Each structure stands twice: as structure tokens, then as C-alpha cells.
């Protein structure tokens, strides 16, 4: 009996450790090969304070959690600067350095001999040498704390934003998310959970030594995540029970030790390869049950369009009637990349309720202007004002919060999450979108989730995608993705909308629908600016247009006036070259 309970206990502890890693890898797409070593931070913290200072539960757990959370947050700092294989290498380095510390700092960690005699929670188990069954309640408590925490975080607006960050960082910034904040926070939360697991491990085994926190352990934990299904909390539980339990149960078959051990390693490795090739999503997909709570769109289309725009910092003299007062004023913008000057003393202003177009030949720097206005690219010189306020020094996500948002020519929807979540995550000021409100205002977080879903559905309804709400966004057709991009943009409740080629690359019947939506947005008093290559669309939408060439505004007027100018026409049609501006690296 004790043998089987031991398997359960071990799997439960591994599951909590897996939750931690799942937030990094599964939710946020941040690879950590240091999970084993961070587990060690938690375990050693408990081992040291319990044996040296005689501290007992629950203080040991609290301390472990705090130390590990701080430790993991410290990794976040360099990790913010690197991605992909660099992050793999960085966390690998952390893994090895920490294990080196465990093995070498003999006076504190006991070196490779480890620390023995860690007190068990006797007041909980009633014995100094408790059996696994005696310890089961303790492990269960830890597990349910971890599970509860993970489910609460994972299914909250915060968790949804993590997934958005994973899918596309620049798009997450464009809907007003401070990506740095989310990355730091997810490392912190991963540390909390890893510390919880580490403390439980130290008390459970009563012995810690470096071999338990090796690179092998880190790899094992990643395997738990990907086998169970990255991004799914229950998948992690399943993964831990399979990978912890299976080898243990194999012991009962009494196979030859050497052969069985190798066969097990072989199967484990092969399983990883096969899963990566044939089922990278793991056993339990990220979205186990796609059906949504059926919420009838309570608002009418008009309400959606008119009711939810905002400008938190309304400029001084803007009455609704005063439609021509510029909402955005850009003055003398300058930017150069090496020898190229996509913005060279460029000024423009965008009036309320109007659609302004930015036209010009390929390579004129139109998309760069959007990047400069939204703050994705920093200015060399110049000034951007929004509602009369100088926003030049604000980050891109902050400008979105003040009501300046954009779409992308290449859409950049969050492909791996559901259509509805693409929109929901963009709704500003949700309780539970930040860690402080997630834990400080749990009731508000819980209550408003219904509202936000309803709101999101009404935006989807507005663009005609309500019936696709539960699908993965990547399954949408390109034109539908453009519409989803619009719905997401609306959900930010921004009142200045920068649309980068809103109708390019879609079929004729979709173009008309998109144009109609854009017109509708502007007629409700929003400020709209489009970058568009198709002059027909410009003529159909815009009341005013700026003509750009080589980083400068060379003319402005109504689209018809500009098109009548033969000089501009020669600039526009006279050149041809590779489309470099729109694929500019770095954004």
C-alpha cells in the first residue's frame, strides 16, 4: 500500500512543479531549462531553515516560496532580453551554475552529500517516521493549494493575456499589454509554485541532494508538460501521473534491472521524439472543451459601436461638434536606420471623426510612421501629441491605454487561442488582468468575467464572427482574421485607430464589408488613419490624405486632388522595387 501511496505523493508533488513550468512554457511560451535547479532552491531553502534554525511548517513553506519566487524573478531580468534558443541557453546556464552551487557550497548545502534529517511535519502526521500514507494529507494540501492557484491564474484574464503574449508579443503590446510586466509576473508565479513543490519535496523525502535537481530533472519536467499538453493544467496532472507512475509500476514486473532501465530510458526518449513529430499538442489539448457559455449578444450593434470608446485624457476643447480639431498631432518626426531615413522631419495631424489616409510609393516609410505614432519604434527627434497631451515618452502599451491603437498589415491575431479570447483579452481595465487585482479583488474578477465575455461577443457580432467565437483563431480564413483584427482593435476601446492596409489581400466581397465597418467606426466619432496602397480604397474611405515620399510629407489634400497631380502620380507609379517597408525587421 505504502508503495502505491508513495507513487501518488510523488506524482502530486511533480504536478505542482509542472504547473509552475506550464505557466512559463505552456502559457507564455518561455522555455526554462532551469526548472530542476529552481525546484532545488525551494527544497534547499526548507532543508536549511528546518535543520539549522529548527523552523517548522508552515513557515518553511512560506520561506521556500518567497526565496524561489525571488530567485525566478531574478532570472526574468536577463530572460526579458532574449528569446528562442538564446533563452534555452540562458536557462541552461542558470541550471548548471545553481547545481554547481549546490555541489560546491559544502558549508551550506552539504555538497553532493546533501542535507539529511529534515524534520517531517510531525504535528500533521503524528509520527517522526511517517509512512507515505501518513504524509498523504500534507501532500494533498500542497497539491490543492497549487492546483487552486493554477486554475485561478490559468483561467483568469491574466492567464489569457499570458497566452496572447505567447502568440504574438507585438500584437499584445498593440492592445495595451505591458509585456515586460507579464513576463516578470509569470516568472514570479512560477517561482511561487516551484517553491511550494520544493518545500513539499524536502519535507516529504527528509533528504535533499543535488542529483534531484539536475538537468535530467529539468528535462523530465518539460517532458511532463509536453506529454500532458502544454497550456492545460489538467494535462500537467495527467503527464505527471503517467511519467512518475509508469516507471514505478514497471518495477512490479521484476524485469532484469539493466535491461528494464535502458528500455525505459529508450522509451522515454522515443516518446519525446514521436510526440514532437506527431502530437506536439500533447495528450490533453490546450482547450479541452471548446463550447462557450452561450451568451446572447445583449447589446445592439449601435451600442457597441457608439458606447464603448474612450479617451481617458480628453483634450481641452473637443466638443462632439468640433469634428475638425486634431486629436493626434505629430511634429517633425525623425528616424533613421543606418543610412535609411523612413521619417525625415515629418508632420501630420489627424482630426476627429474623419478618415485620413497615408499614401505613397513602396518604401516611403508609411508603416514606420505608424510604428512611430504608436511608440513601437522610438523617435530620434520629434513629438507626438494625443488629445493635446505629449505622449512622446510613453511606451506603446501606454499609448494604447490612452486610446491610440493600431492593426497590422499582416494581421497578427493570436492564432493559437480562441477567437473570443482574442477579443476578450483586448478589453481594458478588467479586474484580474493584473496579479494585484487577480488576488486583491477576486470577487470582482469572478463577477466581471461574464460581462467581458458578453462584451467580446458583441464585438464579434459586429464584425460578423460571433458564430466562430469558440474556434481557434488560426483556423479562420485570412479575411476573417482581418475582421477579427478589427474586433480586437475595437475591444481596446481606443478612439484613435490606425489601420495598416485594412483590406489588402482579401476578396472583393470582404473588401466591401470591411470598408463599411471602417466607415461606421469613423462616423461614430472615432479618429481613423489608414495606410493603404489601393487608391480606390483610399478614395472610397478617406476625406483627407497625406502623400509621403522618402520619409517626408510631400503633399496633402483630398484623395482626388492628390491623384490629379501628375508629379505625384509619377512618384507613385514611376518606381517599382521590393516591398521593404512593410516587412521591416524589429517590429
Amino acid at each position: 500500500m505504502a508503495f502505491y501511496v508513495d507513487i501518488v505523493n510523488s506524482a502530486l508533488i511533480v504536478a505542482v512543479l509542472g504547473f509552475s513550468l506550464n505557466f512559463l512554457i505552456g502559457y507564455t511560451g518561455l522555455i526554462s531549462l532551469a526548472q530542476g535547479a529552481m525546484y532545488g532552491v525551494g527544497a534547499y531553502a526548507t532543508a536549511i531553515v528546518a535543520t539549522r534554525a529548527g523552523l517548522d511548517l508552515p513557515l518553511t513553506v512560506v520561506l521556500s516560496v518567497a526565496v524561489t519566487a525571488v530567485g525566478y524573478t531574478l532570472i526574468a531580468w536577463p530572460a526579458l532580453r532574449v528569446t528562442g534558443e538564446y533563452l534555452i541557453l540562458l536557462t541552461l546556464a542558470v541550471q548548471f551554475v545553481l547545481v554547481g552551487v549546490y555541489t560546491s557550497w559544502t558549508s551550506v548545502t552539504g555538497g553532493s552529500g546533501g542535507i539529511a534529517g529534515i524534520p517531517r511535519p510531525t504535528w500533521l502526521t503524528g509520527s517522526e517516521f511517517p509512512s507515505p500514507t501518513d504524509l498523504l494529507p500534507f501532500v494533498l494540501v500542497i497539491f490543492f493549494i497549487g492546483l487552486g492557484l493554477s486554475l485561478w491564474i490559468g483561467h483568469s484574464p491574466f492567464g489569457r493575456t499570458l497566452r496572447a503574449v505567447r502568440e504574438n508579443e507585438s500584437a499584445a503590446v498593440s492592445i495595451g499589454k505591458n509585456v515586460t510586466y507579464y513576463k516578470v509576473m509569470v516568472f514570479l508565479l512560477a517561482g511561487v509554485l516551484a517553491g511550494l513543490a520544493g518545500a513539499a519535496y524536502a519535507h516529504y523525502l527528509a533528504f535533499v541532494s543535488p542529483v534531484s535537481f539536475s538537468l535530467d530533472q529539468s528535462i523530465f519536467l518539460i517532458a511532463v508538460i509536453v506529454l500532458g499538453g502544454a497550456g492545460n493544467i489538467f494535462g500537467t496532472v495527467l503527464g505527471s501521473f503517467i511519467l512518475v507512475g509508469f516507471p514505478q509500476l514497471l518495477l512490479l514486473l521484476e524485469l532484469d534491472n539493466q535491461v528494464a532501465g535502458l528500455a525505459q530510458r529508450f522509451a522515454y526518449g522515443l516518446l519525446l521524439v514521436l510526440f514532437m513529430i506527431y502530437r506536439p499538442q500533447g495528450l490533453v489539448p490546450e482547450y479541452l472543451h471548446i463550447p462557450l457559455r452561450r451568451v446572447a449578444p445583449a447589446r445592439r450593434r449601435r451600442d457597441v459601436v457608439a458606447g464603448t470608446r474612450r479617451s481617458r485624457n480628453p483634450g481641452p476643447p473637443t466638443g462632439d461638434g468640433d469634428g475638425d480639431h486634431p486629436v493626434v498631432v505629430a511634429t517633425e518626426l525623425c528616424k533613421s536606420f543606418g543610412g535609411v531615413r523612413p521619417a525625415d522631419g515629418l508632420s501630420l495631424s489627424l482630426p476627429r471623426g474623419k478618415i485620413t489616409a497615408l499614401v505613397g510609393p513602396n518604401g516611403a516609410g508609411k508603416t514606420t510612421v505608424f510604428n512611430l505614432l504608436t511608440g513601437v519604434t522610438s523617435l530620434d527627434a520629434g513629438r507626438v501629441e494625443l488629445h493635446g497631451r505629449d505622449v512622446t515618452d510613453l511606451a506603446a502599451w501606454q499609448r494604447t491605454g490612452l486610446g491610440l491603437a493600431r492593426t497590422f498589415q499582416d494581421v497578427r491575431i493570436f492564432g493559437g487561442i480562441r477567437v473570443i479570447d482574442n477579443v476578450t483579452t483586448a478589453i481594458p481595465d478588467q479586474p484580474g488582468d493584473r496579479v494585484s487585482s487577480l488576488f486583491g479583488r477576486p470577487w470582482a474578477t469572478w463577477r466581471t468575467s461574464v460581462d467581458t465575455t458578453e462584451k467580446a461577443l458583441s464585438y464579434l457580432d459586429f464584425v460578423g464572427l460571433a458564430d466562430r467565437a469558440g474556434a481557434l483563431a488560426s483556423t479562420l480564413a485570412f479575411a476573417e482574421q482581418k475582421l477579427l483584427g478589427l474586433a480586437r482593435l475595437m475591444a481596446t476601446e481606443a478612439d484613435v485607430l490606425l489601420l495598416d492596409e485594412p483590406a489588402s489581400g482579401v476578396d472583393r466581397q470582404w473588401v466591401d464589408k470591411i470598408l463599411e465597418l471602417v466607415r461606421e467606426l469613423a462616423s461614430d466619432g472615432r479618429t481613423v488613419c489608414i495606410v493603404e496602397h489601393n487608391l480606390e480604397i483610399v478614395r472610397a474611405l478617406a476625406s483627407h490624405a497625406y502623400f509621403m515620399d522618402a520619409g517626408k510629407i510631400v503633399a496633402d489634400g483630398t484623395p482626388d486632388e492628390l491623384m490629379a497631380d501628375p508629379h505625384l502620380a509619377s512618384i507613385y507609379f514611376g518606381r517599382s522595387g521590393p516591398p521593404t517597408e512593410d516587412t521591416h525587421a524589429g517590429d
Partner: protein
Amino acid sequence: MKRTSRARARLAAAGAALALTATACGGSGGAGGGTETLNMGALFAMTGEGSFYGDVMSKGSQLAVDQVNSGGGAHGYTFELQVEDHRSGQVDAAVSAARKLLNVDGATVLLSSFTAPTVAVQPLAVDQGVLLLNGGGVGSDLVGKENLYNNRMLGAQLLPAMVSWSAERHNAQRVATIFWNDAAGRSDNEAVKQGCQQAGCQVVAEEPHAIGTTDYSAQLARIRSANPDMLVIGSYGNDVGYIIQQARRVGLTVPIIGNEWTPDAAKIAGQAMEGYTAIIDRFDPATSDPEGKAFAQEYERRYGEEPEFYAANYYDLTRFVLPALIKMAGDAGEDPTEPGVLAAEMATAVEQGHEFDTVYGESMTFNQDGTVVKPAAVFEADGQGQITPIATFEDGRIVMPGG
């Protein structure tokens, strides 16, 4: 392993004539029917870098089990041995394997190896009243632990005498040490200093290294620059082979001594091993001791190789220590398969200074802190993977034969 152990039992019965020679001297005549089974568990390094140890330890203990069983059991009990893998020192694997051995297989005795796994399972052994016997691990963490007894001599017991004797022998004034960066290695290093104090030599370089390293250039460069005239190794396993090989390659020609030797390390060092002297548990396959001879012959017949001292240690534990404890339990009218009985008998035996039989010749006794006192000797290695005894260790001193 269960299947193979039964197959081996049949094999052993076929060769019972040889085995019986050993039983006759073992002092374990069957008292009573001999139908009850005593379950033994073993935690060895069956896979991973240390699987050399797992291999010889399981061979040594299995041979003993088969001999006891074919001789009618030990005082009414036949042995059933179940070996599990701790993957060369993985504590998690060791603990879950120990739970399986104790709770599924119902083992009442646990043979263990390596320091960390042994320390990790010791609380379980205490909890379930199980006797824990280690014949391989050398860490100082193994000393003074309830229910745990070690029959491999530790560096702290052997090295002081070895160092002072060798320093005099080679007229060494400046001693360098290279050792495992763990509790075992560090206590070895302290033992070397102690030995040096006695002999009046000076420790000029102390180089700890990570366990399992294969590149010692940094340590050796520093040792060379300290210009020693003797090198003491406080490391174990293959590491000894790499150290000696590389020391010789970089032109360090001074005498090298230590307290470990394995055939694998000898294979790694090759020719460079020549002249290395080690003080280890004195098992000599060419011994004249009857128990030792019988063991060596049967081991070689069955496995096609000469036994070394790790195999001998686990053979001793299974073949002599356990039957003696079972007899004591029987005399006291207690059931050795009950929790706590064997451990209690062992404690009594240690207190009484009980002399256990051993293949090392003479006898062995245990100290209260769980360490062993038994014959040890200084061996000198040649370049062909062989060692020969050159001196013996008696009462804390090293004695040359005839001098």
C-alpha cells in the same frame, strides 16, 4: 532479477558439491525444517556510470544467497533477494525502489550502496524496523546512523596510517592531495593531514574536484607547481584511473597512494597504474583463508572473473553477518522476519563485540557508530590491471611482512 535469481538457484544446486565446502565452514547448519523465507532487498547502481559497482555487488550477494539456500537455509530461513536500481546514486529512484522493496516485497533487510541513496533510505529503514547494510558507500554521513552498518573501511580509518607509512617509505616531505569535493573526499583530506602530522611531512596542495570529472588538468597544474614529492588520492571509482593516467602524462612522477582501486580504474589508467599503492579492505583472491578461497573459486567459476573487494563485502554481509543474526534471534526465541528484530540483534552483537566470519580471513567486528574493523592491507598495482598485497594494516599500524 527474481526470475534470474531462481534460475541461478537451480544452477547453484547443480554445483552444490563446491558450494557445500563453503557451507561446512560457514557455521550455518540448518536448524529445523528450513521452510520459511526471509526477504532481502538490495539497492545497487544497476544502470548509469556506477554500474560496475551494481554488477559486482549483485553478483557477490546473489552468490551468497544461493549458497545459503542450497545449504538448506540459514537456521530455518531461506533467502530471497530482490535487487533494485538506484541509477548510480539517484536519491528519488533509491527511495521509491526502497519503498517497493519494503512494502511490496516485504524485505526485512536492505543492502545498500553509495552514500546519498543510503542516507536517503535510512529513515525508511528506521521507520520500518529494517536492518540497513552498506558495503560500498564511503561517506562520513554514513557514520553514527541508527540501523545502518557499513562493512567497508572508511578513509578516516585507513589513510592516516597509510600516509605516515608511505611518507617514511618514500622519504616524502611535501604531500599533495586530490580528492572528491564531498563529505567523503574532504574527510579523506583531513585524514591525510592527520597522517602527515604523525610523519612530520607537510601538505603543500589540496585540490578538491567534482565527482566524475575526466579532465584534471587544472588540479594537476596546481599540484605540479607546488612541487610535491607524494600525491594522495581521496577519490573513488573511475576518477582514480583518470587522475593517475593524467598525472603521469603531465610528468608527475612522484609516488601516488590512495584508498581505492577498481579493475575499471586500472583499465582506464593502463600502464600508468604501475606503482600506485592503495590501502583497501584486504581481499586477495589468492588468499589462503578457506572461506575466502571457496568464495573466490566459486565466484570465478560462475561469473568467469576474479572477485574484488566490493563483491566480497556484500558476500560477507549475506553469507556470514545475516545468518549469525538469525541464529541469535532464534536463540532468543524471536522471529527475524518481524520488524526491528534483526536490527536489535545487530545492535546487541555490536555491543558484545561479536566476531563475524569473513572471506577476508580472521574475523570482523563492528563499532558502535556502524563502522567496521576488519583486515585491510596495502596493495601495489602493476600496469596490467593486477594488484598484490605488500603490507597489512593491524591495530592502526601498517606492517610489512617479515618486518
